[in-house]
């Protein structure tokens, strides 16, 4: 009964979305106030119905209702309950339900938190989001119903893929989808602005916090995914340039560009056309990512061709959304004014260059991801595009952007002078060069790549400090404030920017040092054997059998010795998940500020010994720490007071730039 109720709720949700799209869009373009009044309550209703439907699915999973196909295929009675919960969105069908849940959640949030936005504009925004929702609810109901029954019911389920039975995987998909789907908000803002012709600075101001918050979620989501790969796959890699990863990374790159170009649009009224285009592209890439991951096209073009229903639907939807948006863009965009004038050396130019680099980087990742698919589809042969290609292409494109990250925030709007910038940044520049040349020696060997990576990181970090220092000095001199008063009076968005940029520096340190100085040892260990790596000696003391809820296995007990003294104990496991008969390596990781000690149990050998892989990974946690700082920066920026101020009605700002 519960699955049917859930199914019905989702069908009702589709009906609500249809009504909402109709009344909101027609009402807003025709100026029918009564019709527009539908959009806000409809968004809440949509969110309620979807949450209700989602809860029904969760209940089916939690209560082990194996008469539901989705539950029978992705869960098991022995599965611990947190993973039964996570299994609700572990399958294709469930993840789509999560997708629409997020979408309706964002719609409700827009309805709730956009008090300052005029009614007709809000109706347009919610109407556009409802159109997107119609596409996804139909996709869900027509091709991927998560509530389908299985008759006769299965005795027990086929279990969740063991790779997904992990705490990281419980929160990774919701975070990632929050980000992915969150870009639909700024997309809707852009389309609404194009339709109404009000592409002004207020539009940019409304869009900015939504973009930033979605970006922060996406950052966390990607970082969690990478962290999960690091500890779950058993060999300590953290990024593989896998198409699935790229699918989430492309919207991230474009979203990053979008945040920066929205800044220019809001502050200077420039880049309006570009910002709108970027908003469309970013959301389109989110949709493309969904298509790539959900259509099966990634595993093989042929898998897509044999079961084309889902793929064709979402491809058609993608083409419709992108096509319609671009047509609207081509029709409306030329009517937009140019915005503020600026010189070649100015913050606008720096941000433009940042946009160019980020977008070209995203385009290159797109090229590398889709190229093998195109070649295969055209019958020109099968090729693989992997890390060697992406490293070779991505790093040279991003390096100048890292350099600009130091200069951009300290340069002036409209017109900056090179001597002035040089004066401000010369110490940061000299110190970063010298320290990047010397620092590698403290780690052991000197290498060009390490030195180059550190150069960028130190440069970004120091330029941030110089920036903060200059701002504070100006304030205490010019406005006669005390130091702490100046610190307190700088806006949160400024600190958010610094925090995110420092996050990038921290991230680069992590990547550079772990690539440069990682040590790996593959050994054959018997009981009592030791393996020495760095300062650590690892001794295998015992092996014991493991009896988990839905797996069996072996657990090693390893003593970690420093100078002969035991400092820690680690317990790597090898599990065999009984239902799917899948072996999993549960690495033991000792996390530290400057290094991770990573032990993974390989295969047993005939003489009773085990293959053991030990890694010493210097500064690897800085990778995710950096990503966390970036996301924190985004959240800080959104908490800025002026957005709360902006939520009050503002009269007279509209049309200021539209008239130019």
């Amino acid at each position, binding site marked *: 009964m519960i699955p049917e109720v859930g199914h019905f709720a989702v069908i009702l949700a589709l009906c609500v979305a249809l009504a909402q799209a109709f009344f909101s869009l027609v009402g807003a373009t025709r100026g029918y106030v009564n019709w527009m009044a539908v959009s806000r309550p409809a968004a809440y209703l949509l969110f309620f119905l979807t949450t209700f439907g989602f809860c029904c699915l969760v209940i089916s999973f939690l209560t082990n209702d194996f008469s539901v196909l989705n539950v029978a295929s992705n869960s098991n009675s022995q599965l611990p309950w947190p993973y039964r919960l996570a299994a609700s969105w572990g399958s294709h069908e469930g993840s789509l339900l999560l997708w629409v849940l997020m979408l309706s959640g964002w719609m409700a949030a827009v309805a709730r938190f956009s008090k300052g936005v005029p009614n007709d504009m809000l109706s347009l925004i919610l109407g556009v989001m409802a159109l997107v929702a119609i596409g996804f609810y139909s996709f869900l109901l027509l091709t991927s119903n998560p509530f389908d029954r299985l008759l006769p019911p299965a005795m027990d389920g086929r279990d969740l893929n063991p790779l997904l039975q992990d705490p990281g995987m419980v929160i990774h998909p919701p975070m990632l989808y929050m980000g992915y789907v969150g870009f639909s908000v700024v997309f809707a803002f852009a389309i609404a602005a194009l339709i109404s012709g009000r592409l002004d*600075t207020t539009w940019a101001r409304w869009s900015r916090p939504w973009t930033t918050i979605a970006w922060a979620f996406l950052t966390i989501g990607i970082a969690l995914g990478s962290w999960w790969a690091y500890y779950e796959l058993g*060999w300590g*890699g953290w990024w593989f340039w*896998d*198409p699935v990863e790229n699918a989430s990374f492309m919207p991230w790159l474009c979203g990053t560009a979008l945040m920066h170009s929205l800044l220019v649009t809001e502050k*200077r*009224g*420039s880049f309006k056309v570009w910002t709108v285009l970027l908003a469309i592209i970013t959301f389109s890439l989110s949709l493309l990512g969904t298509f790539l991951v959900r259509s099966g096209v990634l595993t093989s073009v042929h898998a897509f061709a044999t079961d084309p229903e889902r793929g064709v639907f979402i491809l058609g939807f993608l083409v419709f959304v992108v096509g319609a948006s671009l047509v609207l863009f081509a029709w409306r965009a030329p009517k937009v*004014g*140019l915005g*503020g*004038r*600026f*010189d*070649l050396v100015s913050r606008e*130019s720096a941000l*433009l*260059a940042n946009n*160019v*680099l980020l*977008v*070209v980087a995203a*385009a*290159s990742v797109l*090229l590398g991801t889709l*190229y093998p698919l195109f*070649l295969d589809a055209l019958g*020109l042969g*099968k*090729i*693989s*595009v*992997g890390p*060697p*290609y992406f490293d070779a292409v991505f790093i040279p*494109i991003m390096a100048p952007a890292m350099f600009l990250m130091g200069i951009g925030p300290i340069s002036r709007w*409209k017109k900056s002078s090179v001597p002035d910038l040089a004066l401000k940044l010369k110490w940061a520049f000299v110190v970063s060069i010298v320290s990047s040349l010397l620092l590698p020696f403290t780690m052991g060997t000197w290498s060009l790549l390490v030195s180059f990576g550190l150069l960028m990181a130190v440069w970004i970090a120091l330029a941030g400090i110089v920036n903060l220092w200059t701002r504070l000095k100006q304030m205490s001199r010019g406005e006669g404030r005390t130091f702490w008063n100046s610190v307190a009076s700088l806006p949160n968005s400024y600190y958010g920017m610094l925090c995110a940029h420092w996050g990038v520096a921290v991230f680069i340190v992590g990547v550079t040092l772990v690539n440069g100085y990682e040590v790996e*040892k*593959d*050994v*054959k*260990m*018997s*009981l*009592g*054997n*030791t*393996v*020495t790596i760095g300062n650590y000696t690892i*001794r295998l*003391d015992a092996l014991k059998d493991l009896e988990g809820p839905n797996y069996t296995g072996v657990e090693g007990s390893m003593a970690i010795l420093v100078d002969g003294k035991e400092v820690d104990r680690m317990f790597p496991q090898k599990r065999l998940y009984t239902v799917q008969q899948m072996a999993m390596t549960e690495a033991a990781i000792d996390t530290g500020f400057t290094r991770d000690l990573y032990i993974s149990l*390989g295969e047993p050998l005939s003489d009773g010994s085990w*293959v*053991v892989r030990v890694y010493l990974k210097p500064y690897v946690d800085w990778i995710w720490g950096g990503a966390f700082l970036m996301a924190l920066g985004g959240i800080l920026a959104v908490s800025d007071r002026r957005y709360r101020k902006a939520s009050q009605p*503002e009269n*007279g*700002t509209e049309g*200021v*730039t539209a008239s*130019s």
Partner: protein
Amino acid sequence: MITKTKIIGLMLFFLGPWSFAEEAPLLAKDPVLEARVKAISLELRCLVCQNQTIADSNAGLAVDLKNQVRDMLREGMNETQIKDFMVERYGDFVLYDPPIKGTTMVLWAGPLLMLFIAFWFSVRFVRRRSRNPDAYKSAEDIDRARALLKD
């Protein structure tokens, strides 16, 4: 005073298995060779896995291929020869570093070309912008609007 327990403790310390704690043998008998095997394995695709290098995979085929790479290195073949051999056997699909040839021209030249075009456009855009008196006026408009709003 040496107590009984201490003696037992000492005996255990010397006679227990840990007193013979010996360094576990490396899986690879020749670490230099193994490093070369790994470097090559990192660029070869495990054809039966879902997007994994043979270095990262423990699948049967991956292990076989790694052994084969090791044997070929021992026989004195170099990296290019081994890769050529793999390509001959499995096609370009086995290489994660796609070779530069007719069908991959767009792939390799694309990013550079895009970068070039994008920069050409933006420099043109900035040049035009910095000369545009109209735009200048609108920037003043914004400043004036800002000032008005603050009041």
